[in-house]
Each structure stands twice: as C-alpha cells, then as structure tokens.
C-alpha cells in the first residue's frame, strides 16, 4: 500500500503536573456577597431610584459578576463557570420558594386575627354587617362532606379506570379512553359546575324533591368528582406503568391469576405514588369555588345533610366574605383561607404517613 498515513494527530489534552489547584478561600463567597450588597445599596440609595427589593436584585447580579471575576482570576475558567451556575441555580430555588413563603406568611399573619373558638364553632346564620362574630363551621362541614363524597366516588372509579388502561386495555378503545381523560384534564371548573347544574340540579334532583329543582352539597360533590377524575386516572396510570414487568411475571409464574396479581402485587407496589396523586386531586377539589357556588348555592346556616338544601364550602366562604361590605368580613376570609390550607396539609401528611406504614422496613 502506498497511501501515506495522515501525519496530523490530535494532541492529547495537557496533563496537569499536580492534582492540587488554587482555590478561593472559604470566606471569599460570603465576602463578595456582602460587598455586592453594600455596593448595590450605595448605588440604589445614592441615585435615589428604589428601595430594599431593588438593592437585593442588583446585589444578587453584582454578586454573580463578582464571583465569576474572582473565581476566574484565582481558580480558572471552568471553576468560575461552575460557581456561577450553582449560584444561579440556588437563586432560582430561592425565587421559587419566595412566593410560597410569602403566601404562608400572609395567611398566618392575617388569618390569626379570627383564629378563635367562635370561628370554628358558629356559622354565619343571623350575622349582620355590624356583627364581629360569626364563623365558618358550616363551611368546614360543607368542604369535608363535599370533598369526602367526591373522593368516595372518584378514587375507586379513577383507580379502576387506570387499571383498565394499563393492565387490560388494548387497541382503539383504551386509546380513546386515555384521550378523553386527557381532554377532561383541561375542562374548566366552571364548566363542570354548569354541567352538573344542567344535568343533576335541573333534571335529576326534581325527582327527589317534589318536582322542584334543589341545590345540594351532593351536586357539588358530583362536580368536584368530575374535576378530580382525570387527575386520579392519569397519576395512577403513571404509577402503575412504573411497576416493573418482572414483578408481574414473577407473580404469574407462581400461578397467581391476573386480577390477584394486580390487587396484591402491582397496587401495593404503586400505592405511595397513587396516594400522592389522589391527594393532589383532593387538594385541587377542596380549593374549587365556582362549582360549589353554582350547584350548592352557598348558605349561611349549618347544614349537615349533603343531599338537601344549600351548603357552603371553605373556598366559597372565602369568596363571599372577601366581597362582603363589612369591616369584619376580611378577617373571616383570611382565617377561612388559612383553615383550608391547613386542612389540605393535614390530609396530605396523614395520607402519606398511612401509605408509608403499609410499606415494609424503616
């Protein structure tokens, strides 16, 4: 062969003579941060263009630039990039948490004003604009009953639907169901409220109600379950798909029938994830106002019976109190909002603990 080999060879990257490299001292990053904040405060207040928020924003930018320059000078380019990126990611995290912290703080500080026994023990029945008392007892009952009934309807239906899609569904029919579940995810809550109003309240409820249509907490529960269903189906579906196929095969190979494999092996394995999805759906339903307003009507009095007469809910209570012409109502609205968030939090934590207790070990 006469062809000559190419003489050009790629040069290997230069090997460092030592593994040790110059590092910025530990105090450098905090020092740069303080310097950046001081400089930014001087700039902002000196020019008289803004307040503390602008100081922090400009300070953060100056800190990023300062950190990059300092690290570039001492540690080299790669390390400077690394430090800048990790600082950027940390600030993104802070930015994401800030609104949450702000919401919690506002809720607690404004909601604590009416956080008393009276609020949790009385309803708004016979409470006028000049009365300082009045509470959300009826609304708490409404939320618990409506969300409870909605969960009772949705959880079995949604989980069974997901099992059908993942374990049994084949071909066009399963695909169609999945598609419409996806479509359902996008239905606005006011539309489900209208649907239940037209279908249940106006057409079905007169049969039980001497021919007159009637609002009820159950109608609200129906609307909420329409809202919850797609969330439950989709999250359960994803969780069931995550269960490894060898687990199913292991059970089949022991001669276990398919339904028992699903019930005793697949579902328990996916349970923590399924519970999380259900709690997300419940949290969403508990915060819905529009459907409750449309089909349960709201009301000031305590009504334990979800199948007859108006019922309120916490979200609806917040909406009504926030719009009421009374100097006492905003405080009620804040406390009700705090109660709603606390309720969802307690439910979520309880469900997580329960799901974890079923798992072994730990």
């Amino acid at each position, binding site marked *: 062969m006469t062809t000559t080999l190419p003489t050009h060879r790629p040069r290997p990257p230069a090997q460092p003579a030592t593994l040790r490299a110059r590092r910025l001292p530990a105090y450098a990053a905090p020092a740069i941060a303080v310097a950046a904040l001081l400089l930014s405060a001087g700039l902002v207040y000196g020019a008289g263009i803004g307040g503390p928020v602008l100081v922090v924003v400009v300070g953060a930018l100056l800190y990023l630039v300062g950190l990059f320059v300092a690290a570039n000078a001492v540690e080299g380019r790669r390390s400077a990039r690394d430090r800048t990126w990790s600082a950027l990611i940390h600030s993104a995290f802070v930015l994401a948490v800030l609104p949450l912290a702000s919401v919690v703080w506002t809720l607690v500080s404004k909601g604590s004003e009416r956080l008393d026994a009276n609020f949790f023990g009385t309803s708004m029945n016979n409470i006028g604009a000049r009365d300082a008392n009045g509470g959300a007892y009826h609304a708490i009952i409404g939320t618990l009953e409506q969300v409870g009934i909605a969960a009772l309807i949705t959880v079995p239906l949604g989980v069974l639907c997901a099992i059908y899609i993942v374990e049994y569904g*084949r071909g066009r029919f399963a695909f169609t169901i999945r598609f419409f579940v996806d479509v359902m995810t996008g239905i606005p809550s006011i539309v489900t409220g209208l649907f239940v109003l037209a279908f249940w309240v106006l057409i079905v409820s007169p049969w039980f109600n001497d021919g007159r249509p009637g609002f009820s907490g159950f109608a609200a529960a129906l609307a909420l379950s329409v809202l919850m269903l797609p969330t439950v189906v989709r999250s359960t579906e994803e969780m069931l798909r995550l269960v*490894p196929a*060898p*687990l*199913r*095969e*292991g*059970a*089949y*190979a*022991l*001669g*276990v*029938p398919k339904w*028992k*494999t699903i019930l*005793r*092996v697949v579902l*328990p*394995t996916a*349970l923590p994830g399924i519970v999380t999805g259900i709690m997300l759906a419940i949290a969403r339903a508990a915060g819905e106002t529009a459907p409750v307003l449309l089909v349960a009507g709201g009301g000031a009095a305590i009504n334990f019976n979800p199948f007859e007469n108006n019922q309120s809910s916490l979200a609806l209570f917040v909406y009504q109190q926030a719009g009421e012409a009374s100097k006492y109502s905003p405080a009620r609205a804040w406390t009700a909002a705090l109660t709603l968030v606390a309720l969802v939090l307690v439910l979520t934590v309880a469900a997580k603990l329960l799901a974890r207790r*079923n*798992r*072994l*070990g730990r």
Partner: protein
Amino acid sequence: MAKRVEAANVTAYYGGFKAIENINLTVEPKTVTALIGPSGCGKSTFLRSINRMHEVLPGARVEGNLTIDGQDVYDRDVDVTAVRRMIGMVFQRPNPFPTMSIFDNVVAGLRLNGVRRKSILEEAAEKALRSANLWDEVKDRLGKPGAGLSGGQQQRLCIARTIAVEPQVVLMDEPCSALDPISTLAIEDLMFQLKDKFTIIIVTHNMQQAARVSDRTAFFSIEKTGDPGRLIEYDNTQKIFSNPTQKKTEDYITGRFG
C-alpha cells in the same frame, strides 16, 4: 412428582417475527437439562413457552404441541394458572416482591392461591427456605423486606418462592447471570438437590455451568439475525461436550462461533 416435558414442532412468534421454529425435544423427569446457544437463538423463548409465560407479551403466540406427562399445555380447556403452578419459573434477575417481607415472599404463591392457615404457611416457608439453602441466613429476620437481601440471597429467595408451591417442573432462565461465583455455586448445589424431586430446565450462557449441572444439553442456534432459532443438537451433556455430532455444536462449545 416430577414430570416429563415433551415438545413437538413448537414454533413461537412475537407478532410477525418467528423466534423459534419446529423445536422437538423431550425432557425426562428428575433430570437437569441445559439449553445453550448464542444470544437471540430462542432459548428463553422456548423456556417461556413451556409454562405459557411467552403469551404474556402482547402479540406473542405459540404453535405446535407441548405436553407435560401427556397433557397438552396449550389445550383450550387448560387453565393457565394451573399450568404455571405445575411448572415454576426462576428469572434472570431476582424479582422479590418489594412490598412483602421475606416470609410473605416465600409463601406468596400459596397465599395468593388461597392458603390461609398460618401453620401450613410457616411449615411450607421453612421447608422451601431450607431447600433453597437460605433458612440459616434469614431465619432470624423473616419479617424484614425481601428486597433488603443481597443479590444471591434474593435469587435463592425467588427459588424458595418457586418451590414453595411444589411445582413438578422448574424452569430457570439464566438464574446465575447476575450473581457472583459463590452465589452461583450455592445455586448449582441447590440444583443437584432439587433434581431428586423436580424436573429442571435451565437456560445458561455459561458452558462450564451447563457441563457441571446438567444431564442433557440442547444446543440452539440461528443462521443469521432475523431467522428463527432452531434446535441443532440434543444429547447427553457428556456427549455434547466431548464428541458432538454437529459441526456447529463443536464450533460453539470450542469458542469458534457465537
């Protein structure tokens, strides 16, 4: 207890793809039979068609005649779960049920098939764990999760789970490929003991293992990628490894091909 497995003209498909063609093979009771051959030649497919695990995959189907002691496994009136109870299977990767304890894993097959009595379950668990050489290692922590065991222990746990339902044939799909030599040795020892009671069919890529544990060896091969796998030679292990009739078999076991 142990039963004879007979395959006549067994052909298996994945959708439109023919994975094995016309396999004819008889496995005698209380023997260990090794299936060897290059990757993709259909050993596992054939193994999985014996206990009807092949059809679990969508689009997969089997043609031909597969009988166990004369009973057609693919007969219309046959209950799949009964077939799988009679023919147990151990998989390539240990797959203990993650939500169950060691004890629950071993008795899963019994319990999920309706056995409730605690004394029966405990007796069966101890017996199966002893047969799987695992009892001494786990007897003090039967309530702990099965997934917390080491890989070799998990595989023996899966073997215990399989033999706890007292099958008559045990299929093993590369049971040692994810294990270290010591665990492998433990499982090979186990096969020698289990041979007294069960018919064992094992797929393996390790030819020394096939030579060590099996009485008879079947060599599968394919012409080229995309062709169905065929049974090239089936004989006593001694004969296959010392004096095979087929040139292909000789090439494979001497390492010249595959």
